[in-house]
């Protein structure tokens, strides 16, 4: 399979080169790993040349320095303590995990393949136990072998959320840890064999509380990166993570400081078909002023805006109106939904007819405009699952002409709700987010057409979920009938996208949950059913079924399936966007050589 992929890539690349030589419009390649075996020629820029399954400027040529810039900073470079999508994308350069997303453009890049492991997980015990066997010849940057115990230790230390509060908690919640386990620092002698076993240096066994089907997705997340216990410095480890990937830190990388990665001499490419490792050196600038970052990207001073969340509003008008600049951009759809939660605990929205009135009255074109229009904002959403998630189906239960709302139908539902003249309620949004304010204002206008009077209630972003919109008591007491919300998937399948926003069991009375409005017992059952369904097609059908049920209950008003406008820096090679990252695949990138 690997050979055929490379062959396909080589043929595609050769064709692309030929096209370029003949003056073809763009040098791109579809499918494959994005690598070509020949030399390189300058590719011609074109809008979306690295999007939708295409590879821009494919190359296998090694060397040069790849320059990233970040307008903020990592929550942590420690694989146990990071929760940014870009951090997981970038992290694959210096750590490896049991599985990994395939390095390929478009939908092919959403496939999970083995990384440290020889194969995907082998289920047993009805899907409650998964076994992985490590490849031979794996080494850390200091030349010591990577064993299954290093992987187990990485997972165990990530359990300690007092020390590593930022990282994902899926393995904490799903594995069958012993009662009172607090991680290897506080309970070093506790037997954890009920959750993880390492019978030999190459075998690791995970025991789950319940059957769980998406385990291979979980195992590509950063907490399964191996950590050598002898080199673990706890909270200081982030300053020099011991590399298991193709690059290692040059010196230390303290928070808030620029840093560089250099080649890891002990990384063996024979064990790692997913990382072409083209540049010799990778430099990262942090806390770069966001508008200046765009200017540096435009002028060729840096190659990539690492956050991958899109260009700043100030740059958009300049870039979109200049054909030469626009040709250097890509416009991917993200696994992110901007939406409005409609809590059923607030009167009169406890009545489904009133919620349906909201669904019909809303002008979704206004919602789209609030987020920046079709290019920078995204496509109008009709249901929850974004098109990039396997199992996505378009569900249009509340169709209105041109998505502008249907006043007549809305009024009929208001009548059925016993509120023929409309009603008053509040809409919450995050005060620091102008797009959410614009959304609230747009809905205020469109709902006013049927007599639903909204009062805008801005709340601070930092406490939005803990204290305000995500706090059920506050929502009830302050009549928060609508709450502007948004969610991006932790990993690109239905569970990764849906679980945190539709499972009623994640709602906490003390606040803090992203699920503000979905309390449907059927949905909880379907989630459990899908989580243990090992047949991917059946599982994906259940995700869509859940989506349908949530829409039927009208507890979520979908707004926009997000898109972003990304710019390719000058001189980049092997550039593509995969469905798993929804930004440039950082593992694949190279730089043109003079």
């Amino acid at each position, binding site marked *: 399979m690997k050979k055929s992929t490379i062959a396909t890539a080589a043929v595609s690349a050769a064709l692309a080169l030929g096209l370029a030589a003949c003056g073809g419009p763009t040098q791109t390649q579809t499918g494959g790993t994005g690598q070509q075996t020949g030399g390189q020629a300058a590719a011609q820029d074109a809008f979306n040349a690295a999007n939708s399954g295409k590879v821009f400027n494919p190359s296998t040529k090694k060397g040069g320095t790849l320059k990233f810039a970040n307008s903020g900073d990592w929550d942590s470079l420690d694989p146990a303590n990071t*929760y940014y999508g870009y951090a997981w994308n970038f992290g694959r350069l210096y750590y490896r995990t049991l599985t990994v997303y395939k390095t390929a453009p478009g939908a092919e890049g959403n496939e999970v393949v083995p990384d440290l492991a020889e194969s995907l997980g082998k289920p047993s015990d009805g899907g409650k136990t998964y076994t992985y066997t490590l490849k031979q010849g794996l080494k850390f940057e200091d030349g010591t072998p990577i064993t299954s115990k290093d992987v187990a230790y990485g997972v165990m230390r990530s359990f300690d959320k007092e020390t590593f509060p*930022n990282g994902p908690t899926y393995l904490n919640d799903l594995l069958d840890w012993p009662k009172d386990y607090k991680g290897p620092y506080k309970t070093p002698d506790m037997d954890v064999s009920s959750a993880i076993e390492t019978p030999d240096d190459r075998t690791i066994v995970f025991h789950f509380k319940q059957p769980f089907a998406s385990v291979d997705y979980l195992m590509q997340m950063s907490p399964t990166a191996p950590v050598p216990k002898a080199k673990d410095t706890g909270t200081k480890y982030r300053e020099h993570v011991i590399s298991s990937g193709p690059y290692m830190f040059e010196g230390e990388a303290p928070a808030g400081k620029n840093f560089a990665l250099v080649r890891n001499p002990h990384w063996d490419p024979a064990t790692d078909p997913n990382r072409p490792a083209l540049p010799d050196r990778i430099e990262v600038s942090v806390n770069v*002023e966001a508008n200046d970052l765009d200017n540096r990207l435009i002028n060729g001073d840096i190659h990539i805006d690492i956050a991958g969340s899109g260009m700043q509003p100030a740059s958009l008008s300049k870039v979109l109106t200049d054909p030469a600049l626009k040709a250097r951009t890509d416009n991917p759809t993200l696994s992110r939904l901007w939406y409005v939660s409609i809590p059923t605990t607030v009167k009169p929205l406890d009545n489904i007819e009133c919620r349906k009135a909201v669904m019909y009255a809303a002008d979704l074109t206004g919602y789209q405009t609030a987020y920046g229009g079709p290019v920078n904002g995204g496509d109008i959403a009709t249901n929850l699952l974004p098109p990039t998630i396997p199992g996505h189906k378009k569900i249009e239960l509340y169709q209105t002409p041109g998505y502008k709302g249907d006043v007549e139908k809305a009024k009929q539902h208001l009548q059925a709700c016993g509120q023929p003249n409309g009603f008053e309620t509040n809409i919450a949004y995050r005060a620091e987010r102008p797009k959410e304010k614009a959304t609230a204002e747009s809905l205020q206008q469109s709902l006013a057409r049927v007599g639903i009077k909204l009062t805008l209630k801005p709340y601070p972003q930092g406490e939005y979920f803990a204290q305000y919109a995500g706090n059920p008591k506050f929502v009830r007491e302050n009549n928060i009938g609508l709450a502007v919300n948004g969610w991006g998937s932790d990993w690109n399948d239905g569970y990764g996208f849906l679980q945190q926003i539709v499972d009623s069991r994640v709602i906490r009375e003390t606040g803090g949950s992203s699920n503000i409005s979905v309390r449907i017992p059927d949905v909880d059952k379907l989630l459990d059913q899908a989580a243990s369904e090992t047949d991917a097609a059946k599982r994906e059908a259940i995700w869509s079924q859940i989506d349908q049920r949530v829409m039927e209950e009208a507890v979520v008003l979908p707004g926009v399936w997000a898109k972003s406008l990304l710019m390719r820096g000058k001189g980049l090679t092997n550039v593509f966007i995969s469905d798993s990252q929804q930004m440039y695949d950082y593992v694949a990138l190279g730089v043109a050589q003079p």
Partner: protein
Amino acid sequence: MITFIIRRLLASVLMLVIVSMVTFAIFFLVPRLVGATPETIATRYVGRTATAETVKDVASKLGFYDPFIVQYGRFLKGVVAGADYSTGPSVEYCAPPCFGYSFLTQRPVWPEILDRFPVTFSLAIGAALIWLLSGVAVGVLSALRKGSLFDRAAMGVALAGVSLPIFWTGLMSLVIFSYGLHITAPGGSYVPINVNPGQWAYSLLLPWITLALLFAAGYARLTRAGMLETMNEDYIRTARAKGLRERVVVTKHGLRGALTPIVTIFGLDLGLLLGGAVLTETAFSLPGLGRYAIQAITDNDLPKVMGVTMVAAFFVVMANLIVDVLYAVVDPRVRLG
């Protein structure tokens, strides 16, 4: 005089304590007064899928369940005597002045502040020299040639310098001089002076000039006004009557008289900038204290906020102290106050 300085020093220490209490109260007491619980505050410092148990553990680790006075006392103790912090596998001693460990990065704040201070110091000192020299020179020339084309042009530029926000002038100057003409360094290219002095100056040239433009404008207008007033004094006429050369009259007698308020304001401005030139550092992506403060506030990271606030307050208080002492030296009546 010594009694005066000691009295002012004690007042400065008291001022720093008050600043720390107010900052601490804004961060902890105010949210509690409007209904925030220790858990809701701790939610800021956990991942987005954190369980209630994780939130409680983090709240407990950060000491949010303790009474306000206990939390504040712990902070003060750390500043004076240092504190022990767990890194997970080991315990680390944070030497005084220990402003605590970042809630987010869980690393000590003081070394981070020390690390960023040279950037802010480099920016402030370089810009201060430029604005002081250019501002005073332009002010003097404008005063001597009152109503001339130079005077009008200089005061016009000065007005623009004071009026334009540095965030705008910073980004525009980067676009023109760094990305258009390629004669200055791009944003975020700071090099420490001990690594390469030439690159250090090159990387800071544009921030120096941009920041200096803002202050020089004010100094030029202030110097001009002072000079116009001084040059009409009787002792200037006497100096001229004695037959002194005009250069001596202007520099030795006129400028000296006009400089007193300039020196006072210079001290305060420099003190303020040493605590972090927030907008300039942001516009030019300089990793100084100002940028650090912005990040700390954005992240709600109290130990960082406390650390950077205390350092900024220290410089402002010290600048005030020096100015007060200088006043006392210049004007004996102050000592009686």
